[in-house]
């Protein structure tokens, strides 16, 4: 009796050992071979899917500038494209051929064209002004050396500089004299100021000549008079197409001739158009059109209403035009 019990015990124990080995190796291998969809449980795939009917633009052309890193882009009245990358500025004709290339000595994170067709560059803490041939006209340090210029906009008599580090918009005259500081945190009016959790802070001048500034931390577009007074604003927080999600979106913005806003986002990488009141209008490029890890899509609009997207991940200027139908 005792003997039988002993042998049954041995058999059970051996069975448990073998079952344990099989079980544990199964578990490891099945977990390892699990398809990523099931294993990566945080996903925003649902938000990446966009109904094709909502995409109003289509990609028509790509230009690949010979740069390792791309930073900023602008388009002038003749549809020439200005791209900054590495430590240079390259100018392309509308056909996409490089016309010239200018060595800057430093990285220019943003570029813009003034109405009188001068090139304004933001070189870290310095604003530089060139004529269209690339000849240096003047330059000035934006307020302090701690400044990090992420965007410049130039009007007829004013130059607006977005300083992400100090969370302020600086207004200069074309000669580089500081006129005023716009949008600072104001305890009296309980205005929180610009909330800028990462180095994305964009501004632009609309066709009516008003200044629009993105307050990315609040998903807000703020409209200022040239005297620095807040005129209007709209805010859209949403993960879906209606608005902007995450901590700091949109990262870039451009304004169409009719006053609509073209926006680009990080995290959920997409380019959309909102009408002047902030209502979502159409999608230019859906998240699935960008590579994993894309961030920092600078935008420009040409005279034909085409939308130019600077895609640093693939190193290309991608041009989107309205769908014909």
């Amino acid at each position, binding site marked *: 009796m*005792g003997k039988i019990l*002993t042998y049954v*015990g*041995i058999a*059970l*124990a*051996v*069975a*448990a*050992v073998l*079952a*344990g*080995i*099989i*079980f*544990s*190796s*199964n*578990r490891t291998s099945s977990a*390892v071979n*699990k*398809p*990523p969809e099931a*294993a990566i449980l945080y996903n925003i795939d649902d938000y990446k899917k966009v109904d094709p009917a909502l995409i109003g633009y289509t990609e028509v052309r790509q230009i690949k500038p*010979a740069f390792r890193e791309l930073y900023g882009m602008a388009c002038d009245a003749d549809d020439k494209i200005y791209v900054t990358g590495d430590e*240079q500025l390259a100018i392309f004709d509308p056909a996409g051929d*490089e*016309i*010239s*290339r*200018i*060595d*800057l*000595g*430093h990285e220019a994170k943003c570029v813009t064209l003034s109405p009188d067709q001068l090139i304004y560059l933001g*070189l*870290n*803490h*310095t604003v*530089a002004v*060139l004529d269209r*041939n*690339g*000849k*240096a006209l*003047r*330059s*000035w*340090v934006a307020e302090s*050396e701690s400044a*990090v210029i992420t965007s410049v906009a130039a009007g007829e008599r004013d130059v607006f500089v977005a300083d*992400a580090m100090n*969370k302020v918009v600086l207004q200069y005259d074309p000669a580089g004299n500081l006129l005023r500081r716009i949008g600072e*945190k104001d305890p009296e009016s309980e205005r929180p100021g610009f909330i*800028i*959790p*990462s*180095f994305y*802070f964009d501004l632009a001048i609309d066709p009516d000549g008003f200044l629009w500034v993105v307050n990315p931390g609040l998903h807000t577009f703020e409209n200022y008079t040239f005297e620095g007074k807040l005129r209007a604003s709209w805010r859209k927080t949403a993960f879906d197409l209606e608005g902007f999600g995450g901590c700091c979106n949109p990262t870039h913005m451009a304004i169409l001739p009719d006053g609509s806003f073209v926006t680009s986002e990080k995290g959920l990488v997409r380019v959309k158009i909102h009408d002047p009141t902030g209502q979502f209008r159409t999608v230019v490029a859906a998240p699935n059109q960008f590579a994993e*890890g894309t961030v920092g899509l600078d935008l420009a609009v040409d005279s034909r209403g085409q939308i130019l997207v600077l895609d640093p991940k693939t190193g290309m200027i991608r041009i989107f035009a309205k769908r014909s139908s």
Partner: protein
Amino acid sequence: MSRAVVRPKSWVMFILLAICLINSAALAQDPARFPKPEFESGYQQPPTQTPPPRSTGREWMDVFVLAVALGLTSYFALKKRSRRAIWAMAVFSVIYFGFIREGCVCAVGSLQNVSAALFLSDYVIPLTVLAFFVIPLIFTLFFGRTFCAAVCPLGAVQDLVMVKPVPVAGWLQEVLGLFRYVYLGFAVLFAATGSAFLICRYDPFVSIFRMGNDFGMMLYSIGFVALSIFVARPYCRFLCPYGVLLGWMSQLSKKHLTITPDSCHVCRLCETSCPMGAIDKPTPEKLPVTREQGIRRLGVLLIFVPVMIAIGGGTFSRLDVFLSKMHPTVSLAEKIDLENRTGTAGTTVETLTFRSSGTPAETLFAEAGIIRKRFRIGGWLLGGFLGLILGVKLIGLSIFRTSTEYEPNRAACFSCGRCFSYCPNEHQRLENIRHY
């Protein structure tokens, strides 16, 4: 200041005003720099807490405890001849090295760290781990396997749960005992190629000391404990790779535990006292073969051993493809290759991660090819080793060495001291001590 333009056709030269370029070093973007929030309420950002790991001092303390425990056990086994004291040491080891020091490394596992340190140029081994490997070997070289008796927590736990051990037939013990060599060979191969630490992965008792692990491993551990109730020290006898080294050391040991404190009277009382079957019995006077037959057989075997080594090496070197799957790089390369051939991408998290890293597949394949070549060489060595072990085993089984006493088998004896109380001489000795 002026610099050449990249393309000949872009003729424009641009000289930036010098004043803008003061402090150009400060311009370099520090990746940690970002627009920080400015707190007006005087809020201070707390630091990230970093609880320190177990200190090196405590690691050395463990080495010290190991050495003291080895010394005490050796004293209890060889000098004091006290089974009870050895049992108490075993309880101590299970509690200290097992339940209290639940982490690694143990002497058995350190075998792999040493293999890796010997064969992988970029692997560094901490000194305490090396001490855990060397100290038991040195002790065994002088006092026999007292480490196994009560210091090794794996051995001790099996010893303590051994309630109803069944005797294992001699031939079965020999055959099962060979699996230790196979396990040793594979463990060293996988450690030396940087593939895996097999001994740690399939450590049967660590999940009990830690009281947690995945379900399969718990089942495996419980099974091993249950088996240890009926089969004396199954892991030590049939699997433990470190035991192979200890066995070799023990055969050369200067002193060793003896069954009798005096000389053996061949009273046969101790004959079944060892549940591990580690007692060599006196042999019959008459040899089963004549001297000439024996020599001829030995000669044949001696010729046969190199053949076994060659066959083993040749065969195992062709296991390179199979065995190298154990290496994460090779297994990833195979998955990527399979995906490339079937036109799928990102079917597993591993391949998806690799593809998004931007490393060209060719680099991975080249690396995997190099690892596979190492497995080819490792296969030769492993197969040769196994051929040699089996050959030597056969020779050992063909040499008829006569003996007239009951003696512990030096390679197999764990110095647990169970046999002491079976010897009438021992009782006499204790009696003498009491009277004295």
